[in-house]
């Protein structure tokens, strides 16, 4: 499975560092990292991390442009670390 963890929050953010979501290759999801704003995008990133094994930081910020569907509406920025757990 891949583990996506909130490691840093700037401004108003829905969840504190430590909030975590686990994603399996079958697309099974446990936990959450925001109020539901970015979970869809995190699942896509997590599936990519599962496939490639490349750990990464992913940042989601405020999105006021409708062209970018993914963002936090609360105005804050969250930094997530996503890694594949091999155990």
């Amino acid at each position, binding site marked *: 499975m891949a583990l996506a963890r909130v490691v840093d929050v700037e401004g108003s953010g829905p969840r*504190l*560092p*430590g909030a975590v979501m686990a994603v399996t290759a079958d697309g099974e999801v446990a936990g959450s990292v925001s109020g539901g704003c970015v979970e869809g995008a995190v699942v896509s990133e997590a599936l990519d991390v599962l496939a490639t094994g490349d750990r990464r*930081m992913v940042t989601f910020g405020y999105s006021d442009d409708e062209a970018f569907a993914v963002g936090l509406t609360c105005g804050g920025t969250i930094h997530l670390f996503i890694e594949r757990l091999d155990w």
Partner: protein
Amino acid sequence: MGGVFDRLAELLVDEVPVALATIVEGVGVDGPDGHLLVRRSTGDGVEVVGSLGDPDLNRVVARDALGELSAGRSGVRHYGEHGEARGESVSVFVESFAAPPRMLVFGAVDFTAALVRVAKVLGYRVTVCDAREIFATTQRFPLADEVVVDWPDRLLAEVGADLRRRDAVCVLTHDVKFDVPAIVGALATSVGYIGVMGSRRTHDDRLKRLREAGITDEQLARLRSPIGLDIGARTPEETAVSIVSEIIALRTGRSTRALSATDGPIHD
């Protein structure tokens, strides 16, 4: 990696405080290592599992992670490749898994059963204490982590030294011979919240008895009595919500007005 997460799972199941440090950016993020588990073991010992890829970095991060763990903090810290404090080449996320906060509930009544349920939702480790054996049973409080048949002052003498700001004591007995020793005992600890149930009349009578027991006005100011926020709660369940809301508001120092009636940030 397996060893670190297997050990973490064991410790979390046993509710043992532990910190996990993970390289999230910079040197070593693509390497084979990248996780370090740290905790205080018996005596002055420290258990360390895993590696961040450099012995000096491991040593410095282990020390810092123990500090973060005792403060209950989680966050990203930056280091040089070998743990230099002024470096910026490695970013490490230190996550603290502290032991759950404690709630002691004195008095085994229906309000207690509801409060235990709500406190468990919030992650408290809950102890129910009453001197009356027929009321203080695990059957009546199946969700409580422990049910103790004893006098409150005796239980507090035993566990009081471990209570901290994030912990709570709720006195729901309505009975002066029980709640006065509970309050006196709780005031002698560093517990963050002391709430006492009772009508305004009971409250006034209780204050008198507490002053007679040598409690100062300054100490009395720590009490939340009558217990809970004024949300018009009537049932045990509603009262439990009003109590835990007060505990949260006291911790955060926030007003207890509706967000719709205020402006400013929702999260700090």
